[in-house]
């Protein structure tokens, strides 16, 4: 093991106690090694914070489905039930707020301030969220809903992220409406202004990161796409 390897083995907690103590003393006495240790600890933390949201996010349905090959299923109705149960489980996991949204949206359709409404088995933005997605620019926040990113997803649809009072999410333009692709409840006990300052929900960030094609739109592209009716 050369000196570099020994240094990094120490940093990774891989040295035997005697060697580790020796390396620790050596690093403490050497400003250059101390700086290197700090830089590499920060690099490790940066790597983990970039990739950990992937492990914390929901596993896409197609991967869940790959786990359960359908070749053994002979009862079509049972398979369909199983699929809808799986979908239900995923939605349930998605967010408590979503459950509220579906509930309000489907059972009490005349309530006009629900952030989502269900139609034909799909969820769409409604009320203030819909309005913000339609008209608001990220650079000009107004009201209780704030727009974050606008981008094109891998299916070619325009998608926008938003933060509302109790949740944040992403919706994509489909058939002239904003279809919900993800909705995440705000952590308990945090008010929305704090959350907006704290940045994007890691689950939402992972979802956006794994579906975005290219880069997010800048302000000019956002305006231009709005002018074209989000196409």
């Amino acid at each position, binding site marked *: 093991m050369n000196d570099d390897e020994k240094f990094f083995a120490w940093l990774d907690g891989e040295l035997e106690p005697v060697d580790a103590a020796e390396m620790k003393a050596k690093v403490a006495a050497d400003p250059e090694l101390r700086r290197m240790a700090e830089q590499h600890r920060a690099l490790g933390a940066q790597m983990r914070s970039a990739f950990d949201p992937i492990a914390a996010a929901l596993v896409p349905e197609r991967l869940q489905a790959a786990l359960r090959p359908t070749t053994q299923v002979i009862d079509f109705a049972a398979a369909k039930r199983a699929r809808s149960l799986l979908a239900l489980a995923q939605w349930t996991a998605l967010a408590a707020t979503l459950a509220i949204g579906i509930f309000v949206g489907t059972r009490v359709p005349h309530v006009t301030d629900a952030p989502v409404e269900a139609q034909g088995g799909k969820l769409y933005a409604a009320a203030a969220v819909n309005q913000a997605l339609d008209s608001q620019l990220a650079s000009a926040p107004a009201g209780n809903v704030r727009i974050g990113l606008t981008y094109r997803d*891998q299916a070619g649809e325009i998608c926008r992220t938003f933060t509302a009072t109790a949740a944040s999410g992403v919706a994509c333009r489909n058939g002239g409406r904003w279809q919900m692709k993800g909705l995440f409840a705000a952590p308990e006990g945090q008010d929305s202004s704090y959350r907006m300052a704290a*940045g994007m929900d890691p689950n939402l960030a*992972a979802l956006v990161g794994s579906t975005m094609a290219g880069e997010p739109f800048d302000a000019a592209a956002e305006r231009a796409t709005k002018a074209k009716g989000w196409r």
Partner: protein
Amino acid sequence: MNQFSPFEDQLGSLLPRLRRFAHTLSRDPADADDLTQATIERALRSKAQWEPGTRLDSWCYRIMRNLWIDTARSRSRKAVHEAPEEEGLNVGEDPRDAIDATVDLKRVMAAMARLPDEQREVVALILVEGFGYREVSEMLGLPIGTVSSRLVRGRTALLAMVGES
């Protein structure tokens, strides 16, 4: 991990970590999910070869890594001509706070993609997935000294790419 749960359930509980590993190896998120799906399918087909009582996670990581090597090899010839290397790195200058998490992921993925394959897998397994040197040496069938020297080169190159900004 529950010893008594069926293979598929154990595999299911590993999916989030396997997906993360796929994202550390792949050039982009769509490739990563394709790799994850291929790994699940291969693991299910090879179920009989897994010895109960041994670690399922290491076994699955090994499957993923081997599949990735196979596809990376056939891709690398194309990639030399395509590689928009700087593209992913420049987005770090975007001032909007809300996109930091997404941008971090893209930037770090772009940097990882520029490492040689043999360094990338070691960096991913140790720095991101948190395996020990010996576990990685057994998983990849490499001497521990080789793991250690690849890790030094990989993390040093990575720091030069992402650590300075």
